[in-house]
Protein backbone atom coordinates (compact mmCIF):
# COMPACT_ATOMS: atom_id res chain seq x y z
CA UNK A 1 0.00 0.00 0.00
CA UNK A 2 2.55 2.57 1.17
CA UNK A 3 5.01 1.27 -1.44
CA UNK A 4 2.37 1.84 -4.13
CA UNK A 5 1.86 5.40 -2.94
CA UNK A 6 5.58 6.12 -2.94
CA UNK A 7 5.98 4.61 -6.41
CA UNK A 8 3.16 6.75 -7.81
CA UNK A 9 4.41 9.93 -6.11
CA UNK A 10 7.89 9.32 -7.52
CA UNK A 11 6.41 8.69 -10.96
CA UNK A 12 4.63 12.06 -10.90
CA UNK A 13 7.70 13.89 -9.59
CA UNK A 14 9.97 12.23 -12.15
CA UNK A 15 7.62 12.95 -15.02
CA UNK A 16 7.19 16.63 -14.07
CA UNK A 17 10.96 16.97 -13.64
CA UNK A 18 11.63 15.53 -17.12
CA UNK A 19 9.07 17.94 -18.56
CA UNK A 20 10.74 20.86 -16.77
CA UNK A 21 14.22 20.00 -17.98
CA UNK A 22 13.01 19.35 -21.53
CA UNK A 23 11.22 22.70 -21.81
CA UNK A 24 14.21 24.98 -22.36
CA UNK A 25 12.10 28.05 -22.96
CA UNK A 26 10.12 27.62 -19.76
CA UNK A 27 13.27 26.93 -17.79
CA UNK A 28 15.05 29.97 -19.20
CA UNK A 29 12.04 32.14 -18.48
CA UNK A 30 11.65 30.84 -14.95
CA UNK A 31 15.31 31.55 -14.16
CA UNK A 32 16.09 34.64 -16.25
CA UNK A 33 12.96 36.66 -15.46
CA UNK A 34 13.74 36.89 -11.73
CA UNK A 35 17.33 37.91 -12.57
CA UNK A 36 16.08 40.72 -14.81
CA UNK A 37 13.41 41.85 -12.33
CA UNK A 38 15.84 41.93 -9.41
CA UNK A 39 18.18 44.08 -11.53
CA UNK A 40 15.31 46.48 -12.30
CA UNK A 41 14.56 46.52 -8.58
CA UNK A 42 18.16 47.56 -7.94
CA UNK A 43 17.89 50.38 -10.46
CA UNK A 44 14.55 51.47 -9.02
CA UNK A 45 15.54 51.44 -5.34
CA UNK A 46 18.88 53.01 -6.16
CA UNK A 47 17.09 56.06 -7.61
CA UNK A 48 15.34 56.90 -4.36
CA UNK A 49 17.22 59.93 -3.08
CA UNK A 50 16.77 59.93 0.66
CA UNK A 51 19.42 59.55 3.34
CA UNK A 52 16.90 57.67 5.54
CA UNK A 53 16.14 55.09 2.89
CA UNK A 54 17.82 51.71 3.21
CA UNK A 55 17.36 49.88 -0.10
CA UNK A 56 18.35 46.56 1.45
CA UNK A 57 15.36 46.74 3.81
CA UNK A 58 13.09 46.53 0.73
CA UNK A 59 15.27 44.48 -1.56
CA UNK A 60 14.99 41.14 0.23
CA UNK A 61 11.20 41.23 0.81
CA UNK A 62 10.68 42.32 -2.79
CA UNK A 63 13.02 39.58 -4.00
CA UNK A 64 10.91 37.12 -2.00
CA UNK A 65 7.84 38.61 -3.66
CA UNK A 66 9.28 37.93 -7.14
CA UNK A 67 9.88 34.26 -6.35
CA UNK A 68 6.38 34.05 -4.82
CA UNK A 69 4.73 35.62 -7.86
CA UNK A 70 6.52 33.47 -10.44
CA UNK A 71 6.08 30.09 -8.75
CA UNK A 72 2.44 30.85 -8.01
CA UNK A 73 1.55 31.79 -11.58
CA UNK A 74 3.60 29.05 -13.25
CA UNK A 75 2.15 26.28 -11.07
CA UNK A 76 -1.41 27.50 -11.57
CA UNK A 77 -1.02 27.55 -15.35
CA UNK A 78 0.73 24.18 -15.59
CA UNK A 79 -2.00 22.53 -13.52
CA UNK A 80 -4.82 24.07 -15.51
CA UNK A 81 -3.08 22.77 -18.62
CA UNK A 82 -3.19 19.26 -17.11
CA UNK A 83 -6.93 19.65 -16.69
CA UNK A 84 -7.70 21.09 -20.14
CA UNK A 85 -5.43 18.50 -21.78
CA UNK A 86 -7.42 15.83 -19.88
CA UNK A 87 -4.20 14.31 -18.55
CA UNK A 88 -5.37 15.05 -14.99
CA UNK A 89 -8.59 12.99 -15.31
CA UNK A 90 -6.53 10.31 -17.03
CA UNK A 91 -4.13 10.23 -14.08
CA UNK A 92 -7.10 9.79 -11.73
CA UNK A 93 -8.58 7.07 -13.94
CA UNK A 94 -5.23 5.23 -13.83
CA UNK A 95 -5.28 5.27 -10.04
CA UNK A 96 -3.14 8.28 -9.12
CA UNK A 97 -4.51 10.04 -5.99
CA UNK A 98 -4.73 13.73 -5.13
CA UNK A 99 -2.02 13.63 -2.46
CA UNK A 100 0.38 11.75 -4.73
CA UNK A 101 -0.10 14.19 -7.60
CA UNK A 102 0.42 17.22 -5.37
CA UNK A 103 3.45 15.78 -3.59
CA UNK A 104 4.95 14.76 -6.93
CA UNK A 105 4.47 18.24 -8.31
CA UNK A 106 5.88 19.80 -5.17
CA UNK A 107 9.07 17.74 -5.28
CA UNK A 108 9.78 18.64 -8.90
CA UNK A 109 8.88 22.31 -8.59
CA UNK A 110 10.64 22.67 -5.27
CA UNK A 111 13.85 21.87 -7.08
CA UNK A 112 13.13 24.68 -9.51
CA UNK A 113 12.06 27.06 -6.75
CA UNK A 114 15.25 26.31 -4.79
CA UNK A 115 17.40 27.26 -7.75
CA UNK A 116 15.25 30.35 -8.26
CA UNK A 117 15.56 31.43 -4.62
CA UNK A 118 19.32 30.90 -4.61
CA UNK A 119 19.81 32.91 -7.81
CA UNK A 120 17.63 35.76 -6.53
CA UNK A 121 19.36 35.83 -3.17
CA UNK A 122 22.85 35.72 -4.72
CA UNK A 123 21.97 38.57 -7.06
CA UNK A 124 20.45 40.62 -4.22
CA UNK A 125 23.56 40.09 -2.12
CA UNK A 126 25.79 41.19 -4.96
CA UNK A 127 23.80 44.20 -6.22
CA UNK A 128 22.89 45.58 -2.81
CA UNK A 129 26.24 44.65 -1.27
CA UNK A 130 24.61 42.82 1.60
CA UNK A 131 27.30 41.85 4.09
CA UNK A 132 25.33 39.55 6.36
CA UNK A 133 26.85 36.64 8.23
CA UNK A 134 26.23 33.33 6.45
CA UNK A 135 23.72 32.18 9.08
CA UNK A 136 21.58 35.16 8.18
CA UNK A 137 21.80 34.31 4.48
CA UNK A 138 20.81 30.76 5.29
CA UNK A 139 17.78 31.98 7.26
CA UNK A 140 16.70 34.27 4.41
CA UNK A 141 17.13 31.43 1.89
CA UNK A 142 15.01 29.17 4.08
CA UNK A 143 12.20 31.74 4.29
CA UNK A 144 12.22 32.39 0.52
CA UNK A 145 12.28 28.67 -0.17
CA UNK A 146 9.34 27.99 2.16
CA UNK A 147 7.49 30.85 0.52
CA UNK A 148 8.10 29.26 -2.89
CA UNK A 149 6.68 25.92 -1.76
CA UNK A 150 3.61 27.68 -0.37
CA UNK A 151 3.18 29.67 -3.56
CA UNK A 152 3.09 26.42 -5.51
CA UNK A 153 0.38 25.02 -3.25
CA UNK A 154 -1.55 28.24 -3.72
CA UNK A 155 -1.16 27.86 -7.49
CA UNK A 156 -2.52 24.30 -7.31
CA UNK A 157 -5.44 25.51 -5.18
CA UNK A 158 -6.31 28.31 -7.61
CA UNK A 159 -6.05 25.98 -10.63
CA UNK A 160 -9.22 24.25 -9.35
CA UNK A 161 -11.27 27.34 -9.97
CA UNK A 162 -10.21 27.88 -13.56
CA UNK A 163 -11.46 25.81 -16.48
CA UNK A 164 -9.14 27.37 -19.05
CA UNK A 165 -5.67 28.86 -18.89
CA UNK A 166 -7.25 32.26 -19.55
CA UNK A 167 -9.37 31.96 -16.41
CA UNK A 168 -6.22 31.84 -14.30
CA UNK A 169 -5.54 35.48 -15.16
CA UNK A 170 -8.15 37.09 -12.85
CA UNK A 171 -6.74 35.09 -9.94
CA UNK A 172 -3.28 36.53 -10.42
CA UNK A 173 -4.06 40.08 -9.26
CA UNK A 174 -6.58 38.71 -6.75
CA UNK A 175 -3.73 37.15 -4.78
CA UNK A 176 -0.82 39.35 -5.80
CA UNK A 177 -2.22 42.86 -5.27
CA UNK A 178 -3.42 42.34 -1.68
CA UNK A 179 -0.03 40.72 -1.10
CA UNK A 180 1.79 43.92 -1.97
CA UNK A 181 -0.39 46.28 0.05
CA UNK A 182 -1.30 44.16 3.05
CA UNK A 183 1.72 42.00 3.72
CA UNK A 184 4.02 44.67 5.04
CA UNK A 185 6.42 44.94 2.11
CA UNK A 186 5.49 48.59 1.59
CA UNK A 187 3.82 49.72 4.83
CA UNK A 188 4.25 48.07 8.24
CA UNK A 189 1.06 46.05 8.85
CA UNK A 190 0.64 47.71 12.29
CA UNK A 191 -0.35 50.91 10.47
CA UNK A 192 -3.24 49.21 8.69
CA UNK A 193 -6.85 49.12 9.97
CA UNK A 194 -7.75 45.90 11.77
CA UNK A 195 -9.84 44.40 8.96
CA UNK A 196 -7.02 44.93 6.45
CA UNK A 197 -4.56 43.29 8.83
CA UNK A 198 -6.83 40.24 9.09
CA UNK A 199 -7.05 40.12 5.32
CA UNK A 200 -3.27 40.31 5.20
CA UNK A 201 -2.99 37.06 7.18
CA UNK A 202 -4.37 35.27 4.15
CA UNK A 203 -1.43 36.30 1.98
CA UNK A 204 1.66 34.12 2.29
CA UNK A 205 3.88 37.16 1.89
CA UNK A 206 2.56 38.52 5.20
CA UNK A 207 3.96 35.50 7.04
CA UNK A 208 7.23 35.65 5.13
CA UNK A 209 7.68 39.32 5.97
CA UNK A 210 6.82 38.74 9.60
CA UNK A 211 10.03 36.71 9.74
CA UNK A 212 12.11 38.67 7.23
CA UNK A 213 11.66 42.18 8.70
CA UNK A 214 13.04 41.45 12.19
CA UNK A 215 15.65 39.18 10.64
CA UNK A 216 16.95 41.92 8.33
CA UNK A 217 17.49 44.48 11.12
CA UNK A 218 21.19 44.74 11.86
CA UNK A 219 22.07 42.02 14.32
CA UNK A 220 18.63 40.43 13.87
CA UNK A 221 18.10 36.67 13.63
CA UNK A 222 15.27 34.19 13.03
CA UNK A 223 14.67 34.01 16.77
CA UNK A 224 13.62 37.69 16.79
CA UNK A 225 10.52 36.78 14.84
CA UNK A 226 9.20 34.84 17.84
CA UNK A 227 5.75 33.33 17.33
CA UNK A 228 5.64 34.64 13.75
CA UNK A 229 8.05 31.81 12.88
CA UNK A 230 5.15 29.40 13.10
CA UNK A 231 3.09 31.43 10.64
CA UNK A 232 4.76 30.29 7.43
CA UNK A 233 4.75 26.53 8.14
CA UNK A 234 1.17 26.64 9.46
CA UNK A 235 0.00 28.59 6.45
CA UNK A 236 1.80 26.08 4.20
CA UNK A 237 0.18 23.05 5.83
CA UNK A 238 -3.26 24.68 5.63
CA UNK A 239 -2.93 25.57 1.94
CA UNK A 240 -1.54 22.14 1.07
CA UNK A 241 -4.38 20.39 2.85
CA UNK A 242 -6.89 22.64 1.12
CA UNK A 243 -5.23 22.08 -2.26
CA UNK A 244 -5.35 18.29 -2.01
CA UNK A 245 -8.92 18.38 -0.70
CA UNK A 246 -10.06 20.52 -3.60
CA UNK A 247 -8.09 18.93 -6.45
CA UNK A 248 -11.31 17.90 -8.15
CA UNK A 249 -11.51 14.34 -9.34
CA UNK A 250 -15.21 14.11 -10.30
CA UNK A 251 -17.57 16.54 -11.94
Amino acid at each position, binding site marked *: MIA*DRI*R*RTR*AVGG*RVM*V*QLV*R*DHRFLALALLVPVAVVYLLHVFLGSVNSPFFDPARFAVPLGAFIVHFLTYVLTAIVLVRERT*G*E*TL*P*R*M*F*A*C*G*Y*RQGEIITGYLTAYTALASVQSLIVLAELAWLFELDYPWTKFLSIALVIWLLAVISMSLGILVSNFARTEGQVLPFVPAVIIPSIFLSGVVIPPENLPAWARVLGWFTPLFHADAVLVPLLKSGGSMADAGWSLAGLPCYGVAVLALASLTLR*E*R*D
Partner: protein
Amino acid sequence: MAEAVTVEGLEKRYGRVEALRGISLSVKRGEIFGLLGANGAGKTTLIRILVGLARPTAGSVSVLGFDPNREAAALRRQVGFMPQSPALYLDLSTRANVAFFGAAHPHENSGRRVEEIIDFVALRERAHDPVHTLSGGMKQRVSLGCALFHKPALLLLDEPTAGVDPPLREIFWKHFRDLAASGATIVVSTHQLDEALACDRLAVMRDGAVLACDSPAGLLRRGRTTVRVKCGDAIEEARIESTPEALAAHLKHAGLSPEVASVELVADTLETIVLDLVRRGGAP
Protein backbone atom coordinates in the same frame (compact mmCIF):
# COMPACT_ATOMS: atom_id res chain seq x y z
CA MET B 1 -21.14 -12.54 -11.47
CA ALA B 2 -21.93 -12.48 -15.17
CA GLU B 3 -22.33 -8.72 -15.53
CA ALA B 4 -19.31 -6.46 -15.94
CA VAL B 5 -21.42 -3.32 -15.88
CA THR B 6 -24.93 -2.73 -14.53
CA VAL B 7 -26.53 0.68 -14.76
CA GLU B 8 -30.05 1.51 -13.57
CA GLY B 9 -32.04 4.70 -13.92
CA LEU B 10 -28.83 6.64 -14.42
CA GLU B 11 -29.24 10.39 -14.68
CA LYS B 12 -26.61 13.09 -15.04
CA ARG B 13 -27.32 16.78 -15.13
CA TYR B 14 -24.81 19.56 -15.86
CA GLY B 15 -26.60 22.69 -14.74
CA ARG B 16 -29.60 22.81 -17.04
CA VAL B 17 -28.25 20.26 -19.52
CA GLU B 18 -29.57 16.75 -19.00
CA ALA B 19 -26.68 14.69 -20.33
CA LEU B 20 -28.25 11.34 -19.28
CA ARG B 21 -31.97 10.89 -18.64
CA GLY B 22 -32.52 7.62 -16.84
CA ILE B 23 -30.39 5.04 -18.60
CA SER B 24 -30.54 1.33 -17.78
CA LEU B 25 -28.31 -1.26 -19.38
CA SER B 26 -25.98 -4.13 -18.56
CA VAL B 27 -22.81 -5.40 -20.16
CA LYS B 28 -21.88 -9.07 -19.89
CA ARG B 29 -18.36 -10.19 -19.10
CA GLY B 30 -16.24 -10.85 -22.17
CA GLU B 31 -18.45 -9.02 -24.63
CA ILE B 32 -17.74 -6.05 -26.87
CA PHE B 33 -20.47 -3.57 -26.08
CA GLY B 34 -20.95 -0.61 -28.40
CA LEU B 35 -22.37 2.81 -27.56
CA LEU B 36 -23.70 4.26 -30.78
CA GLY B 37 -24.99 7.81 -30.94
CA ALA B 38 -24.65 11.23 -32.48
CA ASN B 39 -22.77 14.17 -30.95
CA GLY B 40 -24.10 15.00 -27.51
CA ALA B 41 -25.93 11.69 -27.09
CA GLY B 42 -24.20 11.12 -23.74
CA LYS B 43 -21.62 8.46 -24.61
CA THR B 44 -18.68 10.26 -23.00
CA THR B 45 -20.72 11.17 -19.93
CA LEU B 46 -21.70 7.51 -19.43
CA ILE B 47 -18.11 6.28 -19.80
CA ARG B 48 -16.81 8.95 -17.39
CA ILE B 49 -19.36 7.86 -14.81
CA LEU B 50 -18.29 4.22 -15.23
CA VAL B 51 -14.67 5.08 -14.38
CA GLY B 52 -15.63 7.41 -11.52
CA LEU B 53 -14.74 10.70 -13.20
CA ALA B 54 -18.28 12.03 -13.03
CA ARG B 55 -20.82 11.68 -10.23
CA PRO B 56 -24.31 10.54 -11.27
CA THR B 57 -27.17 12.85 -10.35
CA ALA B 58 -29.44 9.83 -9.78
CA GLY B 59 -29.52 6.09 -10.38
CA SER B 60 -27.21 3.22 -9.54
CA VAL B 61 -23.99 2.03 -11.15
CA SER B 62 -21.99 -1.13 -10.58
CA VAL B 63 -18.78 -1.78 -12.48
CA LEU B 64 -17.01 -5.13 -11.93
CA GLY B 65 -18.99 -5.28 -8.69
CA PHE B 66 -17.66 -1.91 -7.47
CA ASP B 67 -19.33 1.45 -6.97
CA PRO B 68 -17.22 3.84 -9.08
CA ASN B 69 -17.88 6.67 -6.62
CA ARG B 70 -16.99 4.96 -3.38
CA GLU B 71 -14.63 2.20 -4.50
CA ALA B 72 -12.77 4.00 -7.26
CA ALA B 73 -9.30 2.87 -6.16
CA ALA B 74 -10.13 -0.85 -6.24
CA LEU B 75 -12.08 -0.48 -9.47
CA ARG B 76 -9.38 1.43 -11.32
CA ARG B 77 -6.85 -1.34 -10.79
CA GLN B 78 -8.93 -3.42 -13.21
CA VAL B 79 -10.12 -0.81 -15.66
CA GLY B 80 -8.37 0.66 -18.68
CA PHE B 81 -9.76 4.01 -19.82
CA MET B 82 -9.04 5.66 -23.15
CA PRO B 83 -10.45 9.21 -23.20
CA GLN B 84 -11.96 10.79 -26.31
CA SER B 85 -9.12 13.30 -26.69
CA PRO B 86 -5.65 11.74 -26.72
CA ALA B 87 -4.89 13.05 -23.17
CA LEU B 88 -1.12 12.58 -23.45
CA TYR B 89 1.89 14.68 -22.49
CA LEU B 90 2.75 16.08 -25.89
CA ASP B 91 6.27 17.11 -24.90
CA LEU B 92 7.12 13.59 -23.73
CA SER B 93 7.90 10.55 -25.88
CA THR B 94 5.63 7.58 -26.53
CA ARG B 95 7.79 5.53 -24.20
CA ALA B 96 7.64 8.14 -21.42
CA ASN B 97 3.85 8.45 -21.70
CA VAL B 98 3.26 4.70 -21.56
CA ALA B 99 5.75 4.36 -18.70
CA PHE B 100 4.15 7.19 -16.71
CA PHE B 101 0.54 6.06 -16.96
CA GLY B 102 1.69 2.47 -16.48
CA ALA B 103 3.57 3.40 -13.31
CA ALA B 104 0.21 3.90 -11.60
CA HIS B 105 -0.02 0.11 -11.45
CA PRO B 106 2.34 -2.30 -9.75
CA HIS B 107 4.23 -4.50 -12.22
CA GLU B 108 7.11 -6.87 -11.61
CA ASN B 109 8.89 -5.82 -14.79
CA SER B 110 7.41 -2.57 -15.98
CA GLY B 111 10.31 -1.80 -18.33
CA ARG B 112 9.59 -4.90 -20.37
CA ARG B 113 5.85 -4.26 -20.31
CA VAL B 114 6.43 -0.76 -21.76
CA GLU B 115 8.38 -2.29 -24.66
CA GLU B 116 5.62 -4.89 -25.18
CA ILE B 117 3.05 -2.11 -25.44
CA ILE B 118 5.21 -0.15 -27.89
CA ASP B 119 5.41 -3.22 -30.12
CA PHE B 120 1.71 -3.90 -29.69
CA VAL B 121 0.77 -0.45 -31.01
CA ALA B 122 3.54 -0.74 -33.64
CA LEU B 123 5.40 2.45 -32.72
CA ARG B 124 8.90 1.10 -32.18
CA GLU B 125 10.42 3.45 -34.76
CA ARG B 126 8.83 6.51 -33.12
CA ALA B 127 9.08 5.40 -29.50
CA HIS B 128 11.61 8.09 -28.69
CA ASP B 129 9.92 11.01 -30.47
CA PRO B 130 7.87 13.56 -28.55
CA VAL B 131 4.18 12.78 -28.98
CA HIS B 132 3.44 16.19 -30.55
CA THR B 133 5.46 15.10 -33.59
CA LEU B 134 3.22 12.04 -34.18
CA SER B 135 0.20 11.95 -36.51
CA GLY B 136 -3.33 11.93 -35.09
CA GLY B 137 -3.75 8.18 -35.59
CA MET B 138 -0.38 7.49 -33.97
CA LYS B 139 -1.43 9.54 -30.94
CA GLN B 140 -4.58 7.41 -30.69
CA ARG B 141 -2.33 4.33 -30.72
CA VAL B 142 -0.20 5.72 -27.88
CA SER B 143 -3.38 6.52 -25.98
CA LEU B 144 -4.69 2.98 -26.47
CA GLY B 145 -1.34 1.59 -25.35
CA CYS B 146 -1.52 3.61 -22.12
CA ALA B 147 -4.94 2.09 -21.38
CA LEU B 148 -3.72 -1.49 -21.93
CA PHE B 149 -0.61 -1.44 -19.74
CA HIS B 150 -2.04 -3.32 -16.74
CA LYS B 151 -4.07 -5.88 -18.76
CA PRO B 152 -7.40 -4.56 -17.46
CA ALA B 153 -10.45 -6.80 -17.13
CA LEU B 154 -12.64 -3.99 -18.45
CA LEU B 155 -11.71 -1.53 -21.19
CA LEU B 156 -13.63 1.72 -21.57
CA LEU B 157 -12.78 3.17 -24.97
CA ASP B 158 -14.24 6.54 -25.95
CA GLU B 159 -14.20 6.79 -29.74
CA PRO B 160 -10.87 4.99 -30.04
CA THR B 161 -10.86 5.10 -33.83
CA ALA B 162 -11.75 8.78 -34.32
CA GLY B 163 -9.30 10.12 -36.89
CA VAL B 164 -7.86 6.68 -37.59
CA ASP B 165 -7.63 5.56 -41.24
CA PRO B 166 -9.57 2.46 -42.42
CA PRO B 167 -6.65 -0.02 -42.54
CA LEU B 168 -5.54 0.99 -39.05
CA ARG B 169 -9.16 0.89 -37.87
CA GLU B 170 -9.21 -2.74 -39.01
CA ILE B 171 -6.09 -3.41 -36.94
CA PHE B 172 -7.60 -1.69 -33.87
CA TRP B 173 -10.70 -3.86 -34.11
CA LYS B 174 -8.62 -6.99 -34.52
CA HIS B 175 -6.91 -6.00 -31.23
CA PHE B 176 -10.28 -5.48 -29.57
CA ARG B 177 -11.51 -8.89 -30.67
CA ASP B 178 -8.26 -10.53 -29.46
CA LEU B 179 -8.59 -8.78 -26.10
CA ALA B 180 -12.23 -9.86 -25.80
CA ALA B 181 -11.26 -13.42 -26.75
CA SER B 182 -8.72 -13.42 -23.91
CA GLY B 183 -11.54 -12.58 -21.48
CA ALA B 184 -11.58 -8.77 -21.35
CA THR B 185 -14.86 -6.85 -21.48
CA ILE B 186 -14.88 -3.87 -23.81
CA VAL B 187 -17.23 -0.90 -23.82
CA VAL B 188 -16.58 1.19 -26.91
CA SER B 189 -18.31 4.32 -28.17
CA THR B 190 -18.55 5.19 -31.84
CA HIS B 191 -20.39 7.12 -34.53
CA GLN B 192 -19.50 4.54 -37.16
CA LEU B 193 -22.09 1.98 -38.16
CA ASP B 194 -19.59 -0.49 -39.57
CA GLU B 195 -17.92 -0.53 -36.16
CA ALA B 196 -21.27 -0.99 -34.46
CA LEU B 197 -21.76 -4.12 -36.57
CA ALA B 198 -18.56 -5.56 -35.12
CA CYS B 199 -19.88 -5.34 -31.54
CA ASP B 200 -21.56 -8.23 -29.76
CA ARG B 201 -24.29 -5.92 -28.55
CA LEU B 202 -24.91 -2.23 -28.79
CA ALA B 203 -26.94 0.55 -27.25
CA VAL B 204 -28.29 3.16 -29.63
CA MET B 205 -28.31 6.48 -27.76
CA ARG B 206 -29.89 9.84 -28.41
CA ASP B 207 -30.22 12.90 -26.16
CA GLY B 208 -29.18 11.01 -23.05
CA ALA B 209 -31.52 8.06 -23.54
CA VAL B 210 -31.02 4.50 -24.79
CA LEU B 211 -33.35 3.95 -27.74
CA ALA B 212 -32.53 0.31 -28.29
CA CYS B 213 -30.13 -2.22 -26.79
CA ASP B 214 -29.62 -5.33 -28.88
CA SER B 215 -27.17 -7.38 -30.95
CA PRO B 216 -26.50 -6.08 -34.47
CA ALA B 217 -28.41 -9.09 -35.84
CA GLY B 218 -31.31 -8.31 -33.52
CA LEU B 219 -31.32 -4.70 -34.65
CA LEU B 220 -31.20 -5.81 -38.27
CA ARG B 221 -34.27 -7.97 -37.66
CA ARG B 222 -36.12 -4.79 -36.73
CA GLY B 223 -35.60 -3.69 -40.30
CA ARG B 224 -37.93 -4.59 -43.12
CA THR B 225 -37.32 -5.91 -46.58
CA THR B 226 -38.84 -4.40 -49.65
CA VAL B 227 -40.02 -7.06 -52.13
CA ARG B 228 -40.63 -6.03 -55.72
CA VAL B 229 -42.38 -8.66 -57.81
CA LYS B 230 -42.40 -7.94 -61.53
CA CYS B 231 -45.28 -9.69 -63.25
CA GLY B 232 -45.73 -8.84 -66.91
CA ASP B 233 -45.57 -5.05 -66.97
CA ALA B 234 -46.87 -4.58 -63.45
CA ILE B 235 -44.50 -4.16 -60.51
CA GLU B 236 -45.94 -4.95 -57.13
CA GLU B 237 -44.03 -3.67 -54.12
CA ALA B 238 -44.42 -4.76 -50.50
CA ARG B 239 -42.57 -4.27 -47.23
CA ILE B 240 -42.21 -7.51 -45.26
CA GLU B 241 -40.27 -8.69 -42.21
CA SER B 242 -36.67 -9.60 -42.97
CA THR B 243 -37.07 -13.34 -42.37
CA PRO B 244 -37.06 -16.27 -44.81
CA GLU B 245 -40.49 -17.31 -43.46
CA ALA B 246 -42.00 -13.92 -44.22
CA LEU B 247 -40.61 -14.05 -47.72
CA ALA B 248 -42.07 -17.51 -48.36
CA ALA B 249 -45.48 -16.38 -47.06
CA HIS B 250 -45.43 -13.30 -49.21
CA LEU B 251 -44.50 -15.15 -52.35
CA LYS B 252 -47.20 -17.73 -51.67
CA HIS B 253 -49.67 -14.89 -51.50
CA ALA B 254 -48.37 -13.36 -54.72
CA GLY B 255 -48.61 -16.77 -56.39
CA LEU B 256 -45.62 -17.81 -58.45
CA SER B 257 -47.28 -17.68 -61.87
CA PRO B 258 -45.20 -18.20 -65.03
CA GLU B 259 -45.57 -14.46 -65.59
CA VAL B 260 -43.33 -13.56 -62.63
CA ALA B 261 -40.18 -12.40 -64.34
CA SER B 262 -38.09 -11.33 -61.34
CA VAL B 263 -38.14 -11.01 -57.56
CA GLU B 264 -36.00 -8.26 -56.06
CA LEU B 265 -35.19 -7.98 -52.36
CA VAL B 266 -33.91 -4.78 -50.77
CA ALA B 267 -33.20 -5.22 -47.07
CA ASP B 268 -32.91 -2.19 -44.77
CA THR B 269 -29.33 -1.48 -43.83
CA LEU B 270 -28.31 -0.91 -40.25
CA GLU B 271 -27.94 2.73 -41.18
CA THR B 272 -31.59 3.05 -42.22
CA ILE B 273 -32.68 1.20 -39.11
CA VAL B 274 -30.66 3.37 -36.77
CA LEU B 275 -31.62 6.60 -38.49
CA ASP B 276 -35.24 5.51 -38.36
CA LEU B 277 -34.92 4.68 -34.64
CA VAL B 278 -33.37 8.03 -33.95
CA ARG B 279 -36.05 9.86 -35.93
CA ARG B 280 -38.86 8.11 -34.10
CA GLY B 281 -37.14 8.47 -30.74
CA GLY B 282 -37.08 4.73 -30.03
CA ALA B 283 -40.81 4.02 -30.19
CA PRO B 284 -41.42 0.71 -32.04
